[in-house]
């Protein structure tokens, strides 16, 4: 700590250069934070996936429906603990830009399968009593309460480009019976969930009796692969063959439809950090070159080579950590305010591991950017450095 004033004073020498370098690092780490949040938004399903849960979908594609009658057959298979059917509804409230992830479900089975969806008992009771009742994720409810004045008890009109109009009505109409919250960090709290029996009654006759996919909980997570094989074998050579897979693998596969998010993020972050490394390295190189005589003077006073190396590295790390942690901090503060585009990125948080990784990257950037100037300063011969005087 006693050398802090010396280290910090060197950053103050060329204020404009230091500020510009700090800003470059700041922006790079702000971008890193946002990219981590975006990656998390795509991969949230993977990280919160239950190890004991499977997804069973049509073997051809997720958009191909499965017979609802499969539910009982799957439930009867050995190793299966519970089954819940889900269907993608694709709800739009008034304007296509107000798209909301909407699913018809059996309330009891759904909430049993996904305990991370937290619903108050009185809300659940009301939901069961209301045929067209729906529960809304807190983030979405708050968003529309603010922009459209949604309240509990409101009747909300929806359209669905997939399911068209309900029988005898111009549009789907749901009564908001309450709000659900995410009981686990990273769990979705942006969906609109209504009852399957209402959906089944109201949709076109030729499309009745089908669902999108099944969530299946196995009795023993260690037997999940075996149960998945058993389910697929059950429906092999039928008109609707299935593909059962772990929930995490399903979520990863779903996210990969957009692209390999992790690799895209790593590529962008890598390119940005490489550029910042050059910027910070150049700053440190210039800074040390300008101080050749001063480093010579410090060594003449008795500063050993190792200490000179450490001081330059400390300066470089201080620069990188100041810029990096500020950028990460601002990104974190922004994510605390929720997703700026909740309809596209319902989950928008920077996981703690990515914050820690950002800190490690900032430190690594400081060490790498300062390495060459620090080694040069360490090797600098005093007599050579002082010959530059006068």
């Amino acid at each position, binding site marked *: 700590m006693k050398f802090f004033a010396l280290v910090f004073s060197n950053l103050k020498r060329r204020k404009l250069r230091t500020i510009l370098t700090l800003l470059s690092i700041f922006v790079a780490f702000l971008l890193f934070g946002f990219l981590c949040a975006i990656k998390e938004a795509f991969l949230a399903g993977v990280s919160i996936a239950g190890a004991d849960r499977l997804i069973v979908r049509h073997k051809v594609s997720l958009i191909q429906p499965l017979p609802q009658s499969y539910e009982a057959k799957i439930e009867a298979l050995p190793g299966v603990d519970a089954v819940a059917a889900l269907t993608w509804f694709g709800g739009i409230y008034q304007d296509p830009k107000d798209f909301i992830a909407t699913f018809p479900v059996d309330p009891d089975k759904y909430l049993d399968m996904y305990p991370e969806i937290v619903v108050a008992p009185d809300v659940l009771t009301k939901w069961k009593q209301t045929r067209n009742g729906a529960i809304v994720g807190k983030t979405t409810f708050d968003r529309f309460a603010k922009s459209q004045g949604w309240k509990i008890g409101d009747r909300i009109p929806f359209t669905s480009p997939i399911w068209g109009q309900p029988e005898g009505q111009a549009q789907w109409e749901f009564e908001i019976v309450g709000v659900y919250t995410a009981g686990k960090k990273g769990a979705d709290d942006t969906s609109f969930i209504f009852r399957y029996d209402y959906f089944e009654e109201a949709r076109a006759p030729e499309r009745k009796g089908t669902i999108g996919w099944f969530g299946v909980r196995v009795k023993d997570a260690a037997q999940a692969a075996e149960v998945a094989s058993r389910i697929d074998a059950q429906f092999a050579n039928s008109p609707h063959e299935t593909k059962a897979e772990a929930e995490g693998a399903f979520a990863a596969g779903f996210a990969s439809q957009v692209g390999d998010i992790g690799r895209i993020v790593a590529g962008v972050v890598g390119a940005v950090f490489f550029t910042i490394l050059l910027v910070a390295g150049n700053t440190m190189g210039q800074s040390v070159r300008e101080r050749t005589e001063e480093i010579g003077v410090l060594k003449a006073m008795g*500063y050993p080579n190792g200490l000179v190396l450490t001081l330059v590295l400390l300066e470089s790390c201080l620069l990188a950590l100041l810029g990096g942690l500020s950028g990460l901090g601002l990104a974190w503060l922004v994510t605390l305010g929720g997703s700026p585009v909740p309809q596209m990125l319902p989950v928008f948080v920077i996981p703690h591991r990515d914050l820690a990784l950002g800190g490690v990257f900032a430190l690594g950037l400081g060490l790498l950017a300062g390495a060459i100037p620090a080694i040069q300063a360490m090797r600098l011969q005093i007599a050579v450095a002082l010959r530059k005087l006068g």
Partner: protein
Amino acid sequence: MSTESLIQIKNVSRTFRRGAEEIHVLSGLNLEVKAGEFLALMGPSGSGKSTLLNLIGGLDRADQGSVQIGGDRIDQLNDRQLAAWRARHVGFVFQFYNLMPALNAARNVELPLLLTHISKRERMAHVEIALGGVGLSHRLTHYPRTLSGGEQQRVGIARAIVTDPTLLLCDEPTGDLDRKSGDEILSLLQTLNREHGKTIVMVTHDPHASARASRTVHLDKGQLSTEAPA
């Protein structure tokens, strides 16, 4: 003045290479400086004055010969030992002051003390004494750019003496100053030598400066040419 030798240089040679050319800066040079002496090293440019000062201060290494300072054979110390030796025994005063521009006077003077294990309060006490000793008690928080050349050199001297070193090595300490400021610096060095017993070796081109020393030696082509007691 003590009659004990503080500096004993025996048969020292130093050669530099410039491309294929070898430049013999010092050739078999012998020199003794007694503790408490104020020695002026004079000579034309390229005569080896600064090289000799660097060897005495442990900033450079001789190709041959021995350099013994106060009983330590510094030519036999490794880099780390030599750095520790300099921190304990030598204070340097440079022609262009070489203060850290982003540190104020007190912080500049504190720099050598950062290598010691004394507390911050003790460091500040030493700094105030050193700056008081050079007449700059009122300039503790001033940055080098706000000080005159003479004041900057005083800060440089305070930095050199703050650890109470055995030996003060001054490389043209008045070379960048006007006559009045130069005289003040020389008087200060004389005071440090006479009243505080500091052994001083000063490189200078200026006969006026060398006249303040207790002894002057002249170097020419890497050899001592004459010795002149003050």
